[in-house]
């Protein structure tokens, strides 16, 4: 930090006398920012070029790199903003030949053209710092948004815990992945039927997904969703992941700036999928943990709340095009009863809203006493042309690296429009074949995979919840998904999102990656999402780190109390 403050005043000092001439501070600010950027880069080069040998040092370097990426993105954005202002202040033109000289520019005169003075002469010496000009504003926005949300995940990717090779690495209980059945999946995917290379798989596909796969998906969903009638492969579009399906749906159902309602807390990934490409807003329908007369269950979704949120959004001039439901819910783990589901759908119909239902955890219901009802199992949908179902293999089969997501909708218009995105979200033919084989083998799924998976999920859940109970930490979810939604409010003093963030960082410092409530748009600070679908040894170690942090947190709290008391 001191390094920056040393260098910063230099350019500003140089420029101070020129203020009157420039009429504005923007060019000056721009230059200061460019210098800042330069200084920051040099600083980081210095910091990271010290090649430490020890693991700790390398990790430290890694952390610095992450920070650098974030900072440079932010600075990029500032420079971009300043540049446009500075340019307009100085009445600078796009570096093109001016109107009157246009006719005279000939091939041979290029040299002269290129010799033109730089349109922003005072910046020409920082040519290297002009990266800001390389990205569009939305490009910077995408980059910053992504970096800021995924830097910790990236840190984990580069420094993963390994029981022999990297015992000090990160354990990730923050990303919703099922790692419990890797043995079964690895074995299954190595079987002979998986390896087929046909000409057709190597050629351009049907962009909606290969017909054989769409047929299989329709059959699979008919069976597992208990559809009253056979589902139609023509209503299926297959893309490389559910986030791609969501992104494409947001594109074709909304225009930029329009919105979907989503009960919050909700899976944060949707925020990306709606924002990065589609520029669609997600309006949270805030749910509360407290049980009251109207709120008979924690985080209960009611039509009243939906209605209220919709009217409020409309009052603010927002155009709401749909409602997004996740069932089984992520992160609370609730399963909507057919009755409540029907009420939500009727609400949507009443207001001509589309409903996107994400049923990506439908086969991960591990409590046998609870039955999940897919929206596709309903005899009649209130508004079937506005009901769109998403499912994928990432969670239920624990193969998030496979990149497969499917859309099922009766609406032919939506099928067509989403299909156009097949160009950009297609799956390799070879992978499509494997997926088809996987989904086809109902016997293996029913007799081997699902029972084992549910058993293991149940055991892991039992382990985690026993720990949480011992720590007297309240939590939700006892039936489905890969996660528990836990309340760490009592460890926050004061109970704010800033404290939540600090606690999150403390977990991170202890090499434990969790997800915090804020990332799920939860309205109350202090909630965390803990993914338990991991192998027991890792889970045990993770819980040890978890307890350590909470212990430290408690001690720090006591120390603070004592200090306060002594001061009085």
């Amino acid at each position, binding site marked *: 930090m001191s390094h920056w403050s040393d260098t910063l005043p230099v350019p500003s000092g140089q420029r101070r006398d020129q203020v009157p001439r420039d009429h504005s501070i923007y060019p000056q600010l721009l230059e200061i920012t460019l210098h800042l950027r330069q200084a920051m880069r040099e600083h980081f080069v210095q910091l990271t070029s010290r090649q430490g040998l020890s693991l700790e040092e390398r990790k430290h370097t890694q952390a610095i790199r992450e920070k650098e990426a974030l900072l440079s993105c932010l600075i990029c954005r500032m420079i971009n903003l300043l540049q446009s202002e500075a340019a307009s202040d100085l009445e600078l033109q796009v570096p093109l030949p001016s109107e009157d000289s246009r006719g005279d520019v000939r091939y041979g005169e290029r040299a002269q053209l*290129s010799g033109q003075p730089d349109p922003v002469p005072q910046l020409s010496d920082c040519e290297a710092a002009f990266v800001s000009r390389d*990205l569009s504003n939305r490009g910077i926005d995408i980059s910053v948004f992504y970096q800021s949300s995924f830097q910790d995940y990236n840190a984990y990717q580069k420094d993963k815990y390994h029981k022999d090779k990297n015992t000090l690495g990160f354990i990730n209980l923050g990303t919703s992945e099922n790692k419990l059945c890797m043995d079964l999946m690895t074995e299954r995917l190595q079987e002979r039927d998986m390896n087929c290379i046909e000409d057709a798989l190597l050629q*351009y596909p049907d962009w909606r997904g290969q017909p054989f796969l769409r047929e299989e998906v329709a059959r699979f969903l008919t069976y597992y969703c208990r559809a009253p009638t056979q589902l139609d492969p023509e209503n299926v579009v297959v893309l490389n992941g559910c986030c791609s399906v969501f992104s494409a749906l947001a594109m*074709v159902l909304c*225009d930029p*700036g329009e919105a979907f309602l989503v009960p919050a807390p909700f899976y944060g990934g949707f925020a990306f*999928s709606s924002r990065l490409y589609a520029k669609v807003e997600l309006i949270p329908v805030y749910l509360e943990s407290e049980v009251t007369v109207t709120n008979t269950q924690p985080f209960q979704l009611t039509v009243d709340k939906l209605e209220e949120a919709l009217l409020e959004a409309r009052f603010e001039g927002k155009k709401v095009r749909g409602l997004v439901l996740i069932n089984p819910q992520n992160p609370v783990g609730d399963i909507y009863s057919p009755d409540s589901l029907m009420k939500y759908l009727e609400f949507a119909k009443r207001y001509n809203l589309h409903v996107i239902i994400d049923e990506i955890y439908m086969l991960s219901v591990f409590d046998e006493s609870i039955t999940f009802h897919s929206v596709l199992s309903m005899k009649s949908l209130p508004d079937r042309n506005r009901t769109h179902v998403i499912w994928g293999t990432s969670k239920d089969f624990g193969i998030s*690296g496979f990149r497969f997501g499917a859309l099922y909708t009766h609406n032919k*218009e939506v099928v067509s429009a989403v299909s156009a995105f097949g160009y950009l979200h297609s799956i390799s033919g070879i992978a499509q074949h494997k997926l088809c084989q996987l989904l086809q083998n109902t016997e293996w799924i029913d007799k081997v995979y699902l029972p084992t998976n549910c058993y293991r999920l149940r055991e892991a859940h039992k382990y985690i919840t026993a720990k949480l109970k011992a720590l007297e930490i309240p939590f939700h979810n006892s039936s489905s998904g890969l996660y528990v939604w836990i309340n760490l409010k009592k460890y926050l003093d004061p109970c704010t999102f800033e404290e939540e963030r600090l606690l999150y960082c403390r977990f991170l410092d202890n090499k434990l990656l969790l997800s915090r409530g804020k990332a799920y748009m939860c309205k109350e600070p202090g909630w965390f999402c803990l993914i338990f679908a991991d192998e027991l040894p890792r889970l045990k170690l993770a819980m040890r780190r978890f307890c350590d942090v909470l212990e430290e947190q408690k001690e720090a709290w006591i120390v603070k109390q004592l200090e306060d008391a002594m001061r009085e």
Partner: protein
Amino acid sequence: MFTLPQKDFSAPTTCLGPTCLQDLGSSHGDDLEGECSRKLDQKLPELPGVGDSAMLSPNTSYLSSRGRMIKWFWDSAEEGYRTYHMDEYDENKNPSGIINLGVSENKLCFDLLSWRLSQSDMQRVEPSLLQYADWRGHLFLREEVAKFLSFYCKSPAPLRPENVVVLNGGASLFSALATVLCEAGEAFLIPTPYYGAITQHVCLYGNVRLACVYLDSEVTGLDTRPFQLTVEKLEMALREAHSEGVKVKGLILINPQNPLGDIYSPEELQEYLVFAKRHKLHVIVDEVYMLSVFEESAGYRSVLSLERLPDPQRTHVMWATSKDFGMSGLRFGTLYTENQDVATAVASLCRYHGLSGLVQYQMAQLLRDRDWINQVYLPENHARLKAAHTYVSEELRALGIPFLSRGAGFFIWVDLRKYLPKGTFEEEMLLWRRFLDNKVLLSFGKAFECKEPGWFRFVFSDQAHRLCLGMQRVRQVLAGKSQVAEDPPSSQSQEPSDQRR
């Protein structure tokens, strides 16, 4: 020169490129909806059966206005290909089906590839391949790509894995680059004729348009060959776009060129790059056919082989296995750029353009196998491409039909202008339809934004028996041409376009 879509709505490729999807915020919604339906009215007489009533009356549609445009585009663009799919030629099952000489795919080496991909080293499955990974692509693959490109592009210094981003195909890469380099409504320059699907790739999400640099078949002035790209033409197109109020952010070069099969010399490349640097334009160099140069004498050089790039921070190179390894269904594409901001921004979108871990592993194995590539695959592939090329070009010569081809790519750019009495795009479309009626699918010049009606792209990278039959059907149509030409324009004429590479 620079066609604004509002003025020229004659082909699907121009319809979307342009401002249609741009800025559809609520404040402009009404205007644009009006505009869309107006356009549609214009278009309708030519489009029976394509699009549907919902498009006509936006109020009854379930889709957003951009969704309606996207759907319309999809419905019309896929038409030719759908016709083909419903009636695909099969030697035994459907000998009177359609022969596809329209889609740029290499169907000559499936035997070699199937063999290679079935080897035991390809079948590895491990947990890390099944889980979320680095969205830029697994490191092992990016390392392999960097080595591969260093070797085959003959880069002066080894290329670095940090500069590599892996995605599910070139289309995705165009989409991501357009989004992170341009604001909505901004443009890339592109010399025409060009592979038309790029229009859609940059538009679907990015809402970026293409500003055409129109090239002529006639050799005049400083040009030394037909459809030659010169800096003068680039300057002119840039000024034109500027005067139309369109902000140009970059230049797209396809090298070896599609559909011309042309190759830019290192000197030419350098000139274009210097032009781009002068105007602070990004350059996207699509080198997806770089290993499909089957004439040694063509002297192809990758942009990565240049000693010094004029503006390395704004030069972005694309490559994929779709063409050079004849696996368009595999969906593997890669970006190489020294600009970390661009690489990071593209990687931020890779969540939506990810490639299965198992396929990433297979790709790494394939690219690593230098022996097989150099000793088996490339020599055999080039020999087969050359033989097929020789066959088709001799057929064309025998028919007295002029064409362009310089020994790269899978296609020949064929001049059928003499078969169009009035030389209009309408006639070009009719001729295309006549080919399709005679069960041979070709691509017509308009789909490549060629400014002269009458050019067609013939894809020759197919098995001999299909190629023979295809050419026979082409001959039949051209022989019967004089008598059909007098027919009144068919009311069923449609305007599909070739959306594949």
